[in-house]
């Protein structure tokens, strides 16, 4: 795979981002660039602030200090109306799917289209929902409610919903955690396809190092509120940072043994 072109225009750029909740400091000076059309994987321990960082990229959280530059524009000062416009470029997959539990699977997946592309006929919407569900390997569950689905299925429905409007940037918060290996593979493939065919810029939070290194152009390791290491998968494998080495060692041991 071609290494990411670091000179390409950054689609997402974070500059000196700080965020605390009350007295609890979560992020203390994040710097990060995601070139257009590339995939960045964020690694980091549980509770290290990966989700908090991702929510800043789409304006769900406001930083205490710093800049979040999307497509050349600092979104930190944006108000609700500007953010709404911005978010039409985004899709986001939540850690626990975040499906609307008062709606069926069909209503959930159709939701973005029914909101933003009112000109489409009902038949078109149905076909689109079916198509996106097929991408994540689901069919025939349109009339079921999220509560009746397994965790893995909910997650895939969340994925289908996130790609309904064919966004230019997709944020995945642990898209494969809790999925079986075959589904994990198909989600990885989906992330790769979206990049190759549609030029999508992706940010993926992952705990699965194997799949992270497969989809990533760049990997960033978050620890103690800062990005302690950032580079291509090959560069990160040979990093000397002790925290990162400790994080990766469990996986490398497994790989060596097999």
């Amino acid at each position, binding site marked *: 795979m071609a290494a990411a072109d670091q000179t390409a225009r950054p689609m997402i750029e974070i500059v000196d981002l700080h965020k605390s909740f009350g007295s609890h400091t979560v992020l203390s000076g994040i710097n990060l660039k995601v070139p257009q059309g590339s995939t960045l994987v964020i690694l980091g321990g549980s509770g290290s602030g990966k989700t908090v960082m991702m929510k800043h990229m789409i304006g769900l959280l406001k930083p205490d200090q710093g800049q979040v530059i999307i497509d050349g524009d600092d979104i930190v000062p944006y108000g609700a109306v500007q953010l*709404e*416009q911005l978010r039409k470029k985004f899709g986001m997959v939540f850690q626990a799917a975040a499906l609307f539990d008062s709606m069926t699977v069909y209503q959930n997946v159709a939701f973005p289209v029914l*909101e933003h592309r009112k000109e489409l006929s009902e038949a078109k919407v149905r076909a689109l929902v079916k198509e996106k569900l097929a991408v994540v390997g689901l069919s025939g569950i349109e009339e079921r409610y999220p509560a009746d689905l397994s965790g893995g299925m909910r997650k895939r429905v969340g994925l289908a919903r996130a790609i309904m409007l064919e966004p230019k940037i997709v944020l995945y918060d642990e898209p494969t955690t809790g999925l079986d290996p075959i589904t994990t593979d198909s989600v990885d493939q989906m992330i790769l396809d979206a990049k190759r065919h549609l030029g999508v810029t992706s940010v993926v939070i992952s705990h699965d190092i194997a799949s992270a290194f497969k989809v990533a152009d760049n990997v960033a390791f978050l620890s103690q509120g800062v990005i302690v290491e950032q580079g291509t998968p090959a560069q990160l494998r040979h990093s000397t940072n002790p925290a990162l080495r400790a994080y990766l060692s469990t996986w490398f041991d497994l790989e060596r043994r097999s």
Partner: protein
Amino acid sequence: MTAPIDTNAPPKPPNAVKQAIEGLGLTLGRLVEDIGGLAVLLIDVLRWTVRPPFRAANLFAQLDFVGVGSALIVALTGIFSGMVFAHQSARAFEMFNSEALVGPTVALTITRELAPVFSALMVTMRAGSAMCTELGTMRVTEQVDALETMAVNPVQYLLVPRVLAGLIMVPVLVMLFDAAGLAGGYFVSVLVKGVSAGTWLSRTQQWLDPEDIAEGLIKGAVFGLYVALVACFKGYHASGGAKGVGLATTQAMVMSALGIFVLDYFVGVILH
């Protein structure tokens, strides 16, 4: 350096007075914070009410839930309040031989006070608690965030229909309560206590003005707006999982119920 912690030492006995004062301070602090938060949310809701798109389907669902869903319990509360109040008034006025005043007393009390206060309390209990829990669950399971990332404003999509439903439907329920309460009051006064039907009706008509009914409706609108706003505020800002949602709902119930009585006094004073 941190002091070593002796895990075997018994905990210090709490100082009850100190705790009570601290508790009061915390409560007052939160009260001021909550009132500020409510005001901010009210402005936000108003702003998003007048901006298109208008979400008629969401509004009708909430009107149905708040209004139609609460109609039966409000009607029942109305009938029994009217009956109880007529019973007690009749007992009292019998002592002065002035049973003719039973009708007007019951009618004025119901329309001005009992109907708006009890209707709002019933709506708080039934609809407010459900609103708060639903919004809180949506918040802690990131459904509110999901809505935002799909470029749909959650205040407009979720809160505006609920607040409008409170504002519109509580006055409607007040009218229902008025009708049920007067019917219950008439029943007990005339059929049980033996007040003459002619006297009851003519005296009630003579004393009960449209302004009295209007006062109840205005109060109903204020209370309806308030309790829906409180339920939305507490639910929308819930945090900390299922436990946090439970806590938010409890706080919403207390804040709504107390607020109704406080507002009742001030609206009454302002109107007269």
